[in-house]
C-alpha cells in the first residue's frame, strides 16, 4: 500500500492506451457510426420521397382516370345521340317510302277501276244495243246510233 513508481508506470500506461484509442480506435469507430447514421438518414429521406412520389403518381393516375371516364361518358352520350338521329332519319325515309308506295298502289287501283269501268261500259252498251235490237227488232243501224250509244256509255 505504499506509493511507489507504480504510480508513474500507470501514468505512462494511461498515456499509451489513451493515445492508442485516440489515434487508432475512436476515429474509425465514430466515422463508421456517423457514416451509417447518414446512410440511414438518407434512406429514410429517400423512403419519404418515394412515398411522396407515390402519392403524387396516384393523384395523377386518379386525375387521368377521371378524365378518361368523363371522355368515355361523353363519347357514349354522343353515340347515343347519333343513333337516335339515325333512327329518326330512317323513320322519316321509311315514312316517305310508305307514302310513295301507297300512292302508287292507289294510282294502280284507280287505273284498274277505270279500266273495269270502261269494259263494263262497253259491255253495257253492247247489252243495251242487243236488248234494244231485240226489242225494236228492226235492224237498227249501228253506225247511225253510235254517237247516241257513246253518250249513253259515258253516262253510265
Amino acid at each position, binding site marked *: 500500500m505504499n506509493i511507489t*513508481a507504480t504510480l508513474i508506470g500507470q501514468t505512462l500506461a494511461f498515456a499509451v492506451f489513451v493515445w492508442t484509442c485516440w489515434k487508432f480506435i475512436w476515429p474509425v469507430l465514430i466515422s463508421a457510426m456517423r457514416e451509417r447514421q447518414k446512410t440511414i438518414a438518407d434512406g429514410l429521406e429517400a423512403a419519404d420521397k418515394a412515398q411522396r412520389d407515390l402519392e403524387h403518381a396516384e393523384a395523377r393516375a386518379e386525375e387521368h382516370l377521371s378524365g378518361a371516364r368523363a371522355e368515355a361518358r361523353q363519347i357514349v352520350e354522343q353515340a347515343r345521340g347519333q343513333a337516335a338521329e339515325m333512327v329518326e332519319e330512317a323513320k322519316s325515309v321509311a315514312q316517305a317510302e310508305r307514302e310513295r308506295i301507297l300512292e302508287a298502289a292507289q294510282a294502280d287501283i284507280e287505273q284498274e277501276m277505270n279500266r273495269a269501268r270502261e269494259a263494263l261500259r262497253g259491255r253495257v252498251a253492247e247489252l243495251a244495243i242487243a236488248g234494244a235490237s231485240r226489242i225494236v227488232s228492226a235492224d237498227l243501224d249501228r253506225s247511225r246510233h253510235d254517237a247516241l250509244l257513246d253518250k249513253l256509255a259515258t253516262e253510265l
Partner: protein
Amino acid sequence: MAESSGDYIKHHLTNLTYGQHPDGTWGFAENAEQAAAMGFWSINVDSMAWAVALGALFCVIFGIAARRATAGVPGGLQNAVEMIVDFIDDTVSSIFQHRNDLIAPMALTIFVWVFLMNLMDLVPVDWIPEAAKVMGVEFMKVVPSTDPNITLGMALAVFILVIFYSIKVKGIGGFLKELLCHPFEAPKGGSPVVRGLLIVILAPINLILEGVTLLAKPVSLGLRLFGNLYAGEMIFILIALMYGGIVIGVFGAALQWAWAMFHVLIITLQAFIFAVLTVVYLAQAHDTEEDH
C-alpha cells in the same frame, strides 16, 4: 485454514513488489515490510501487469471492432462496442462543449479500462492468487484499482492534462491569474495603489484556496476509485474467510453472490464516475469565463 484470518487478509492485500532491497540487491519483496523498505523506487508488478493486460485487452477488443467497423449492418461485437462508444460520445458532448477531439476517446479509454480493472474484483478472491502460488508467485493482487498507485497514477495523468490544457487555453498568465486572483478579487475602482496592494495581499490566500481546489481534484478522483474498490475487495476477502464450515460456508456463498450482484453496480458506476469527472475537470480547464 493453516494461516490465521489476519494473515489471510494481509496476504491478500499485499502486492507483488519488485525493487531494490535496503542491502542493495534487486528482487521481489517477500513480505509487506520488505516492500515498504524498498521505498518509492519499486514497482507493484501484479497491479502493473494486470492493468496493462486489461488496457491491452481493451485496445484489442475495440481495435478488432474498429478494424471490422463498417457503415453497413454491424455485427455483434461491433454493436456492443458502438453502444459503449455512442454512450460515451453522448455523455461527453453533453458535458464538454469545447472543441477537443482527445476528450471523448480518453473518456472511452478510462471508462472501459477502469471497468475492466474493477471487473477483476468479481473473480473469486482466491482463484488467481492460489493459481499464482502454484506457479511459485507468492503475492498476486488481481484488482489493479484496489492499488492506490494505479488509481492515483491515472488521476496524475488527468491532472497533467488539466494543467496542460489550462495553460494551452488560457496561457500561463491566464492560468496564474486564475490561481492568484480568485476567489477573492480586489474591488474595481479606487486608487491604483490601494488596488495593487490589495491584489498582492490577496494573492497568497487565493493561491492556497485555488491550489487546494486544483490538487483536490486528482486526489479525490484517485482516492474515490481506490476507496470504493478497496472496500469492496475487503468485503469479498472477509466473506471468503467464512468458507470453513458447511453451514457458514453456504451462508458465505449467498453473501458473496449478493455482494457480487451489488458490486456489479459499483464497479460500473465508479468507472463511469471516473470518466465523467475527468471530462468535467478538463471542461473546467477549458473554461475561459471568469465565473467558476
